[in-house]
């Protein structure tokens, strides 16, 4: 291992970034699917994989609110990253009694 590889490790574990996903599909009865293109979760140096579980690799926020990992599943398809929010885990109606419409 040389300095370059050491730098790569630091890039994997200490270079946070942020992406905005857009609504990809909401017709599935169970999920709202959001997508961002050309985004891939970084690979981790093998010796560090146990120190950062998949669920701790990223955080999900909706309008600034932290979303529990129990409320979504994520998927990587080629270079696109998908998050599917579980409809059953979100209230059916908002505080005004209107059905939730996701944008």
């Amino acid at each position, binding site marked *: *291992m*040389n*300095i370059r*590889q*050491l730098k790569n*490790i*630091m890039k994997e*574990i*200490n270079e946070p970034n942020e992406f905005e996903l857009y609504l990809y599909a909401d017709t599935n009865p169970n999920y709202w699917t959001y997508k961002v293109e050309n985004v891939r979760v970084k690979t*981790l*140096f093998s*010796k*560090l994989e*146990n*120190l*950062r*579980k998949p*669920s*701790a*690799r990223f*955080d999900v926020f*909706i309008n600034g*609110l*932290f*979303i*529990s*990992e*129990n409320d979504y599943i994520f998927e990587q398809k080629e270079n696109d990253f998908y998050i599917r929010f579980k409809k059953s885990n979100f209230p059916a109606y908002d505080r005004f009694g209107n059905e939730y419409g996701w944008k």
Partner: protein
Amino acid sequence: MIVNAYLLPETYNKKPVVKKSNSVKRVVFGVETDLTGNTLINPSLYNEYAQVIDFVAVRGSQMATFVNATTVKLTNVKKPILPSELFGVFDIVNWFRVYINGDFISPSLYTYSYNGYTNEITFTFTGLTFPLDAQDEIAITGKFEEL
């Protein structure tokens, strides 16, 4: 194999035959220490800086378990020790990020303690304007290892 060669003197016409010069390449020194305590078979930079790298790499994200109206806990976790190399550099105030029902909670509103025997980190909230109940979703991320 036949090899033909000339035997050259060190000097010819009072001038040295072999001209030495400094290489334009850098001189790169390899690993000199290994802090892992393991046998030094395949020395690597990772082993030299493993404590710091591991600390930076550690990140947990877990839903806390409700204890009572002011207390929650993370179970089956390990809180890493801050390496001395990062004293004064790492932001210990934000060791954790706590979210109650999605809202970020300032570190000034809670204290925490780690029990290395039970592998639990207990968070006690002191300044919340509401009591916690079992239905609240308390998510905690930060520097802890999920075992």
